[in-house]
């Protein structure tokens, strides 16, 4: 194993950050960094627990943290998030309790959805994070319909539709983008291009050089963003949200990131990724890039980092221990929530 390459620099100066992010910029960066460390710990722990057979499945978001954290910090309280596969962090950053999320990962009786979905498919209505399916791209037109509702009720909210590079091939991408264009709706389409759809590289997903170009086909601006640069991601998202909120219509942001993990715990990337992929991806690691920036700005103190890690570790340990002590969903929950009420006249299943 060769030595890790240095992370690509984030060449921002303090005055520039103050100008672009406002006077609270250092608190914003620290908040983002703290979430990055939380996310990394969560991914590492959950992959390990899955390997030990304690969690059934896990889909890490390693390498994609900057985009989700930027979204969680840039949105307004009434904005709605329609996640793709790896945006669970947005819910956490918006205030969904980590302990509740861990109950979901363990599919126990305190999961708000009673363990009905695979891990990494949380539901968090209290932070307007919509329950996702495992079907790629279907959420895109939901975000569009919801945004129609915003305008219908004069709500100044914006919908964020997240999806990956693979989803740009799916029919719902076309349908959703097209409807949003026609009705000029407040939607920010966030394509997190991690360059892999399981085994297929993005070059084999589409002939266009940049997925952002696809915005033009629907009459909306498309913009490519360095998605492992938190500052850039936050700024571009804020602009797109503001523009949608002002009634200037939808936009497409393509966040280029590097998938630093397997597709999921069921996947073996050595079958299809080039041998140097991990090394290349490490240069784009958003956490290391953020550390580099904080270091260059003289803001990084190892004492504070150690204290943050200690807190994250304690919170995670506690959440995991609690979840492991929690009983599985009761069998009588099986038939609940299929319909608003169990039809008395129907034959019971099973």
């Amino acid at each position, binding site marked *: 194993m060769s030595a890790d390459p240095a992370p690509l620099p984030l060449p921002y100066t303090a005055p520039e950050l103050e100008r672009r992010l406002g006077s609270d910029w250092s608190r914003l960066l620290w908040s983002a960094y703290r979430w990055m460390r939380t996310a990394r710990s969560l991914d590492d722990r959950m992959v390990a627990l899955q390997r030990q057979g304690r969690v059934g499945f896990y889909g890490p978001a390693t390498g994609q943290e900057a985009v989700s954290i930027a979204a969680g910090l840039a949105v307004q309280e009434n904005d709605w998030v329609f996640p793709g596969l790896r945006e669970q962090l947005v819910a956490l950053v918006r205030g969904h309790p980590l302990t509740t999320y861990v109950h979901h990962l363990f599919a126990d009786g305190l999961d708000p959805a009673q363990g*009905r979905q695979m891990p990494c498919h949380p*539901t968090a209505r209290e932070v307007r994070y919509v329950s996702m399916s495992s*079907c790629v791209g279907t959420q895109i037109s939901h975000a569009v*319909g919801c945004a129609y509702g915003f305008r*219908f009720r004069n709500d100044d909210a914006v919908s964020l539709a997240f999806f990956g590079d693979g989803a740009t091939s799916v029919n719902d991408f076309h349908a959703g983008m097209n409807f949003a264009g026609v009705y000029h709706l407040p939607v920010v389409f966030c394509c997190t291009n991690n360059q892999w759809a399981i085994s297929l590289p993005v070059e084999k997903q589409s002939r266009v050089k940049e997925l952002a170009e696809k915005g033009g086909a629907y009459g909306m601006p498309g913009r490519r963003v360095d998605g492992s640069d938190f500052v850039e991601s936050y700024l571009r998202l804020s602009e797109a949200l503001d523009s949608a909120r002002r009634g200037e219509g939808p936009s497409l942001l393509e966040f280029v990131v590097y998938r630093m993990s397997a597709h999921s715990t069921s996947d073996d990337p050595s079958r299809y990724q080039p041998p140097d992929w991990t090394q290349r991806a490490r240069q784009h690691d958003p956490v290391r890039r953020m550390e580099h920036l904080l270091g260059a700005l003289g803001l990084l103190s190892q004492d504070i980092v150690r204290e943050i890690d200690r807190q994250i570790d304690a919170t995670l340990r506690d959440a995991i221990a609690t979840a492991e002590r929690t009983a599985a969903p009761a069998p009588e929950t099986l038939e609940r929530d299929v*319909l*608003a009420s169990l039809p008395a*006249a129907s034959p019971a299943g099973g």
Partner: protein
Amino acid sequence: MTEVTLVQAINRALRTAMAADSEVLLLGEDIGVNGGVFRATEGLLKEFGADRVVDTPLSETGIIGSAVGMALYGLKPVAEIQFLDFIYPGFDQIVSELSKFRYRSGGQYPCHVVIRSPYGGGIRGGLYHSQSTEAYFAHTAGLKVVVPSTPADAYGLLLSAIFDPDPVIFLEPKRIYRSVTGEVPDGDHREPIGKARIVREGADVSVFAYGAMVPPATEACQSVETEGVSAELIDLRTLVPLDVPAVLASVEKTGRAVIVHEAARFCGYGAELSAILAEKAFYSLRAPVSRVTGFDTPFPYALENVYLPNAARIRQAIVETAKAG
């Protein structure tokens, strides 16, 4: 009370619902300026405006997916799919999303979308304007499936569907859109979802039908009187949830059952009804359950009158069932 056709009853129900609740809105292809290809939404654009009667791009997945998003937000969307034959681009949205939102979110995200769609044959529509594929939807947990056969039921059941907390697939028998007329009440009068209707009482054979099969089944039930057979006709009206007590009560009385639908036979809705009778009314049955259905073929253009059950085929099944055993 006013005498109207079935499609006029649909139009009136939409108008009543939209007048009663400003968050009921319609979306679909050609439903605005054109009033729908069957005119089900005629006049509604003018009355309620383009924000509430939304002409959409030609995309069933976009229509249903957007309706799901509107419902998640809290609106009450009523989507029109121009022909049931064209619903399949949106099938993923129905089966993977609409039907599962409440369940997968532990009740956090109910999703009350109504999808109206004309279905069935008899209009010289060939393979792609004629199919009767209600079984796909009835098979999927999380959906209600409603099929009216009279103007009054179309009116009352559509109003119930629009204000129901669950997603409803509302199938309209287009063959009898204009051939059936009847009185509908004025105002917000709702028929309960999940209740069958006894069209006529009888003692010897129970006939179960729905949608466009109710008129030929009615004719057949009348015609067997000359053979001394007293047939009871039940219009199911709601396929999900099925009114199991009404089905069982009828067969417990008559001991014989004929099931009529125009959909293909294999794994059609009649197969489930037949299985329920075998499981729950076995000791009441005095003859095999009989099914009068379409064929296990694609829907034919030139031979549609051979494909579709008619009064003669239903009559024959009733007589044979009455005399069997």
